[in-house]
């Protein structure tokens, strides 16, 4: 089983390159059993969304 450090690294790299099948399976199994990493994954999706708002200037609509 991969560690949380490894799992978060894969979740980050998922935005940069295509993960291998083996990596995707390892990640899926890990997150099924790890609430911390499940939360991390959701937060990465949120960060992406926030970054998109930011770069479009929508964060300035304060």
């Amino acid at each position, binding site marked *: 089983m991969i*560690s*949380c*450090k*490894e799992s*978060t*690294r894969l979740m*980050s*790299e998922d*935005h*940069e*390159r295509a993960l291998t099948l083996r990596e995707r399976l390892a990640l899926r199994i890990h997150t099924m059993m790890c*609430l*911390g*990493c499940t*939360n*991390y994954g*959701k*937060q*990465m999706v*949120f*960060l*992406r*969304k*926030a*970054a998109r*708002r*930011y*770069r*479009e*200037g*929508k*964060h*300035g*609509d*304060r």
Partner: protein
Amino acid sequence: MKRQDPAPTTFLWDDPSIIAIRRDMLRFAQMQLRDAAIAEDMVQEALIAAMTNTSGFAGRAAFKTWMFAILRNKIVDHIRRSAREIPGSDFVDASDPDAADFDTLFDQRGFWNPDERPATWSDPDAALSQKQFWAVFDICLNNLPERVARVYMMRELLELDTAEICRQLGISNNNCWVILHRARTGLRECLENRWFKGEALA
């Protein structure tokens, strides 16, 4: 702000909405460039480009998004021009003091230390429409080690791909991924501590 076809269009520079957009553009450029004078130049260039290319302007609702797209292009151009002057070896120090910080998140086997385990954020999307959240977001970006923040912003805010960032900074792909992983993890942690904790933690 008025739109007239064909160009030249007349933006009214004292229109409050333009003043606000200009202010936000300047703040964005300063975050990316960390140089007030160059940031000012980039915003001026973007405004001039906007005035001379109004055909790209799809409508008032999209105006700010369009202005920001032009500004991002100007900043990217600047980075591409000036990257060659920055020796890559200065960028990544072999002895990395930040790595130790990152490692405290995990135990020896690489599992979350209990205090550092990501919590459940309830309704994070609601934060996106709150002014204070974005102030915290800026603080958290600034809290990242400078080069980590720089790579993250090039990737996520300027939308350069990893390969180009690596080339510009003279670092390996793998190094780039490590830095991005650290940036995302640091940002996540900071937002949790400074915003979501107490606010909305389950």
